[in-house]
């Protein structure tokens, strides 16, 4: 499997607090990697670094041949570099972050029209196809505020896919949802994984990790402690801290 993401010796600090320590992670094309760990362990920060939403102090990130260099402390960032990376990488947020003043359809077509310079007809045709895929073809003219959380998150996934990313990042996509809406979002993500999308998912949904992930990464205090296929990591964790974490989250 050809690697599409290579994170090498990534370190990041907020002031004097080190939040990522020499993180190394390689993700192959079509691979689904689930990142687990306690709150504040740095798992969200890691994926936010991958599409340049966070700066980092040392190390490097390569996505499909494009690389991001450390930029912590510098006021200027290399915008061309960021633009290339973001073209490759889609991101789904915990809080959806849909544009509340735009309809569902406009949410999905905005970036393709403005960034990819597609004409409106092409962008809308693509958007309708994607919205159908996430089961929201009947809601295209509603505003985000008129949708449930689960529906909003599915629109957010469609919006991200409209840019035709090679990699999708999910930052706790179901954490802000009412329990009955979690499964509809996970179902869409399962579908993406089946179709071969490369995905990095930060989540607390251990069932999803076990079922869909090719590999699970356990992060603790900003360090990657353990990386293994889900069956190994969940059933036979090597590290003491992984065991403790899993016993806490899998208990119920």
């Amino acid at each position, binding site marked *: 499997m050809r690697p599409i993401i290579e994170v090498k010796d990534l370190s990041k600090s907020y002031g004097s607090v080190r939040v990522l320590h020499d993180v190394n992670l390689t993700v192959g094309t079509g691979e689904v990697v689930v990142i687990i760990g306690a709150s504040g362990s740095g798992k969200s920060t890691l994926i936010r670094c991958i*599409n*340049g*939403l966070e700066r980092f102090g040392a190390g490097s990130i390569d996505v499909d041949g494009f690389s991001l260099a450390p930029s912590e402390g510098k*006021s200027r960032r290399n*915008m061309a570099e960021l*633009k290339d990376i*973001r*073209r490759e*990488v*889609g*991101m789904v*947020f915990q*809080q959806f*972050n*849909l*544009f*509340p*003043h735009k309809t569902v359809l406009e949410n999905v077509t*905005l*970036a393709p029209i*403005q*960034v990819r310079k597609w004409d409106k007809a092409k962008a809308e045709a693509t958007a309708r196809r994607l919205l159908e895929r996430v089961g929201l073809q009947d809601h295209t003219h509603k*505003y*985000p*505020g008129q949708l449930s959380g689960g529906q909003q998150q599915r629109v*957010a996934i469609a*919006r*991200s896919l409209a*840019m035709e990313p090679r990699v999708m990042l999910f930052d706790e996509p179901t954490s802000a949802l009412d329990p009955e809406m979690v499964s509809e979002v996970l179902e869409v993500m399962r579908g993406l994984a089946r179709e071969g999308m490369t995905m990095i998912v930060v989540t607390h949904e251990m069932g999803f990790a076990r079922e869909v992930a090719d590999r699970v990464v356990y992060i603790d205090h900003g360090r990657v402690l353990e990386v293994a296929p889900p069956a190994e990591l969940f059933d036979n964790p090597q590290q003491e801290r992984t065991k403790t974490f899993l016993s806490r989250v899998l208990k119920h």
Partner: protein
Amino acid sequence: MLSDLRSWAPELLTGLRLTVGMTFGGMAIALVLGLILALGRISHSLWLRAPVVAFVELIRGSPLLLQLFYIYYVLPVFGLRMTPVEAGLLGLGINYGAYLSEVFRGGIAAVSQGQREAAESLGMSGAQTMRFVILPQAWRIVIPPTGNYFVSLFKDTALVSTISIAELMFQGQLIASDTFRYMRIYSVIFVIYVAISVPASMGVRWLERRSNRSLASR
């Protein structure tokens, strides 16, 4: 009383027309300038930010009347000669632009960071994010305070009478010095200002309630 009113009506109407014109003209300048100053104020570049901050503080820290005198009487010394109306529009526009820039800056800051991140992660540039995502949402937030400034500007146009613009206040003064009927003419002027600004304020409050409702439903 009625015969007085009838004989004053042409001058008062001319004055009112100019007052309304100064209000809309000043506001148009203020809106554009306010947005430019707000964007300068939030710029990452210190070279852009520092002069903008200095300018806004200069304007907010001095009386509008002084600014009008400065533009009309002092700028000609530097070769910038303007008609009274041009000077008045510029003075009102700059003064209100400085105040509005703070309103706009607040509105822009009130749009959540998540909106910026979503736009960035879709590959949108800073300018695209501002134009398509941040400003449309900020605009809804700043409509009520901007409306209040609009009504306030309407009343402040009376100050430009001091640089010989023949707006409503100026016409009142002319009539007063002609007829010595101070109570009558200034009461009429009073009523005209109030008859316009009070309904306008009520309109702004209605807009505010409406925008609160539409934000609450999200």
